[in-house]
């Protein structure tokens, strides 16, 4: 078994993704079937955000990947040799 930090990071990733999946599933699938005066609606944002927030997350992810690639390519540029 992996030790220490590896296990902690791995398990926290698993727990985080389970929580995210459960919250998003309830938000998208279960909430429309629940009466609008039920107390459960208090814990969830309006349903428009269930489309907007993943969209923003995807944009941020693409920005991070692009920035990372740009930094790496900038660091690896070789100045042209003058013969």
């Amino acid at each position, binding site marked *: *078994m*992996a*030790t220490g930090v*590896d*296990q902690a*990071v*791995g*398990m*926290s*990733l*698993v727990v*985080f*993704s*389970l929580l*995210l*999946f459960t919250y*998003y*599933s309830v938000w*998208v*699938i279960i909430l*429309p*079937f629940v009466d609008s005066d039920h107390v459960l609606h208090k814990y969830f944002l309006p*349903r428009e955000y*269930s*489309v907007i927030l*993943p969209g923003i997350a995807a944009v941020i992810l693409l920005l991070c990947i692009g920035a990372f690639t740009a930094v790496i390519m900038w660091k690896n540029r070789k100045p042209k040799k003058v013969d």
Partner: protein
Amino acid sequence: MTKLVEWLFGVSVVVAAWALVSFDLLDLSLPQTYREVAWPMPLYLLVSFGCYSLATVGYRVATFNDCDEAAKELQGQIKEAKEDLRKKGLKM
């Protein structure tokens, strides 16, 4: 029929079913709640696939085995190789 054509056919059937339900193209007058649930389905599948990937990566990071014997053996071989190269004149 190639695999690509099969997959495209399957995907287009699913997309057609989704479009029918969420945009009411056949005027079936489904209850509003079913349309509300069906409409974000592609995004929901994408998010759940992302969660599944994250969970798989996390689980495999947590259960990755250390191999102590192989690590020791490798360190020994590194030492041997360094000695050998030092004798042959390579400066470390």
